[in-house]
């Protein structure tokens, strides 16, 4: 039974077709990467999966259950969580408070009007667990808005984890992150994939080809290619879509990412 399945999922903004009749099914194991040029509809696709946008037509199934019209907060309770292209977190909160929010929800405190936060031992313990996991403990009392860009990305992902998802959708986790920190993010995602299904939207070809078990290529809102890293590399249409009819010689280096 597949973990996540879409049936001719389509989204139109007026005449613009952002996602065009996408049928995809995502199984249990490994890391799936979704690549494609800007405006291919990757982020819109994530928004449709997680209930942020209502599809113009088509359906989304999570473990067989139809979640098309559910709101993000209901889908999150069904263990499907996602991070954001521009890292989003609570700037005025400290890092501890940011992570604590997800724990509040999972431990059922979201409608608790009277508990004194400092006395909630279970919340405290759980939040410490995540803080250790991300070695952010030294900056525990620092306001999130003062973090470096990379740390913000990690915090965003950490907040997704507090929901203990079975599927984690990561929207360009390393974009805008400098060399040293992107390796830190890269390793972090690597060991996460052991515990849960990970779907990444990514531009960095080195990461895509070294980390993914399966690659899906999106262009103008529809799937161009879907298969292992090797199959996608060889695929004619992918090369054409990516390079727009470059001369013969240039294909290989562009695809292999050396010229970056």
């Amino acid at each position: 039974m597949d973990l996540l399945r879409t049936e001719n999922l389509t989204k139109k903004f007026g005449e613009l077709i952002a996602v065009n009749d996408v049928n995809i099914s995502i199984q249990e194991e490994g890391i799936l990467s979704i690549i494609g040029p800007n405006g291919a509809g990757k982020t819109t696709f994530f928004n449709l999966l997680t209930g942020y946008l209502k599809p113009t037509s088509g359906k989304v199934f999570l473990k067989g259950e139809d979640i098309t019209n559910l709101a993000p907060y209901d889908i999150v309770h069904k263990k499907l969580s996602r991070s954001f292209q521009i890292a989003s977190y609570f700037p005025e909160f400290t890092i501890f408070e940011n992570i604590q929010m997800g724990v509040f929800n999972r431990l059922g405190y979201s409608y608790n009007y009277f508990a004194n936060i400092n006395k909630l031992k279970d919340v405290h313990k759980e939040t410490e667990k995540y803080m250790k996991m991300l070695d952010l403990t030294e900056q525990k009392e620092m306001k999130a808005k003062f973090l470096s860009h990379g740390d913000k990305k990690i915090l965003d992902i950490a907040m997704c984890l507090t929901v203990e998802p079975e599927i984690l959708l990561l929207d360009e986790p390393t974009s805008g992150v400098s060399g040293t920190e992107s390796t830190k993010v890269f390793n972090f995602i690597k060991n996460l994939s052991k515990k849960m299904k990970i779907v990444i939207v990514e531009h960095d070809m080195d990461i895509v080809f070294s980390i993914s078990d399966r690659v899906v290529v999106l262009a103008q809102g529809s799937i161009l290619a879907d298969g292992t890293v090797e199959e996608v590399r060889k695929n004619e249409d992918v090369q054409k879509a990516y390079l727009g009819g470059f001369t013969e010689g240039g294909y290989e280096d562009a695809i292999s990412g050396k010229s970056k």
Partner: protein
Amino acid sequence: MNTTLCLALLFNGIVLGLIWSVIAIGFSLVLGVGQTINFAHGLLFTFGAYFFFSISRNTSFWIAVIAAPILVAIMSLFLEVVLVRRVYGQDPLFGLLITFGFAIAMEEVIRMVWGKAAYSVSTPIFARGQLILGNFVYSRFRILLALFALTILLLVLWFMSKTSFGAIVKAGMFNSEMISALGHNLPLLRTLVFVMGGLLAGLAGVIGAPLWSIKSGMGTDVLMPGFIIALIGGLGSIKGTIIGGLLVGITTSLAVLVIPRFTDIIPYVMLIAVLFYKPKGLYGEVTILGEVRE
């Protein structure tokens, strides 16, 4: 209920709707492009009426019709540059409060300058008398004012859809960052739109002065239908504002037969009903941070 009365009330609703639309358009443009709630719009309307009253008494009716809106436009330039410009992009409540405070203060200035009494403007000679068709009686002056309002609305409609400035203003509503990205000077655009709103408020004041007699508090009474029609019509949509104005005007005018005492509630109920089903308003394409998600 005899039919002539319903006909008269329907006709009266159209007249009322057109005049309210002139007020609503100014509010809608400022709200659309500048994303600020301009609660001083009612005050600018009042200044239009007072300027029209003073100038028409000392000079001639026609000089006043032209001079009053221009004076109000200059005043709105001052208001935008000194105050409103500092609250663009901040919490919408700030824009609302700063213009609201300015309106309270300036209303007091009006009372200091023009005194606290109510004034009336005498109907110009050419517009006196009534249009009488059988027992359908209607004031000729009101019809002329409605036509004047209609011309203003059509002018703005033409200006917004046909001229390049109009196109930039419309684009400014969709995505203000895009406008500055394309090299247009966004702050200048917002100022010009605010001044345009002021000019429209002044024109509406010229219409309102003879109609509803002039008192310092007349701005707040007119502001409510103004912003409601702007939202019902859809922000920045001129067509929407005109249709919204007619809708509200006609319903309010006919409602006198049904619930004479509570006709003033009609615009508010219509607003809540429209925004509940169509958050962007009837013809609105843009929502300003109105909804978290669809």
